[in-house]
């Protein structure tokens, strides 16, 4: 298991008791997100569809790379990686 930090966007911090960084132990992005929603169950519907898949309009990055350009939710993590949840922004 690797120690990683999940970076929570403003729009979701009400589901993580105000925390913008959530440390978790995980091997893959999928594991890290499952650990996150297990700790903060109200976040589940914000991140995952009913079938457990990541919602299509959310982007997830590991450090500077979109997991779409790596191995998706199976992207493996290293110690001290950052997993960033990136919702689309449109405010102007």
């Amino acid at each position, binding site marked *: 298991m690797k120690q990683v930090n999940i970076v929570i*966007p*403003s*729009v979701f911090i009400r589901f993580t008791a105000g925390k*913008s960084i959530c440390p978790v132990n995980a091997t893959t992005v999928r594991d890290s997100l499952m650990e996150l929603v297990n700790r903060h169950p109200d976040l589940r519907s914000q991140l995952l569809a009913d079938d457990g898949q990541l919602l*299509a*309009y959310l*982007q997830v*990055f590991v450090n*500077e*790379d*979109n997991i*779409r*350009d790596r191995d998706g939710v199976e992207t493996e993590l290293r110690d001290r990686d950052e997993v*960033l949840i*990136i*919702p*689309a*922004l*449109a*405010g*102007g």
Partner: protein
Amino acid sequence: MEPLTDEERETYQWQMWVPGFGEQGQQRLKDASVMISRVGGVGGAVAYQLAAAGIGTLVLVHAGRVKPSDLNRQLLMTHDGIGKPRIESMKRRLQELNPRLKIVAVDENVSTENVTSLVDQCDLVVDCAPMFEERFAMNAEAVRQRKPMVECAMYELEAHLTTIIPGRSACLACIVPQQPPTCKRQFPVFGAVSGTVGCMAAMEVIKLVSGIGEPLVGRMLRFDLRTMSFRFLNVVRRNDCPVCQSAQAAADSEHP
């Protein structure tokens, strides 16, 4: 091309001292036409900085009338303009700052009906709209017309910024393949946040037009002023992006 006047040389003297910019960069700004979609918290800051820097022409696209709730962030709107068209306030404020600025003021928002003629009038576009429908329409047309688009947006204390070069870097539809279902017209905002990303977007325009520095092409700046954290993300073109595919097909048919 109208050459710089003595008044303009005096006004822009301090920025013409920037290495690599000089009189040539200033002339390029004067010759440029930039469209800004919605000139509110973000777009107002873009417009004000570009007017100050001596851009030649701004095409300003924003419908509606000034409301009291605009005034915490939309710095081109004024208290005495409440109830009047926003476009009037912004024209007045910008021309107080720069009477030489040419303004094409459009009292509409971007739509699929007007976007072609709007983008056609400019060299590059700045996307500051609060609705994804407007952002996607701007993006598709900018890619189709092969015009750069500076993409900037914010929510609460967070913001993002990237520069899209059609055919070369990820477009908005590459970055956001699917529109979120819960997007709201109203959002929490401090003017200092929208102003910060707006000023950065103006700098992207200045770099693109003048040729100095390195625009944020293929990278997205994402920042959170709550924690003062700034991160750079790689944004990559998608082979299955319908906007990029359509533009490429059109280009291929013109130049087989």
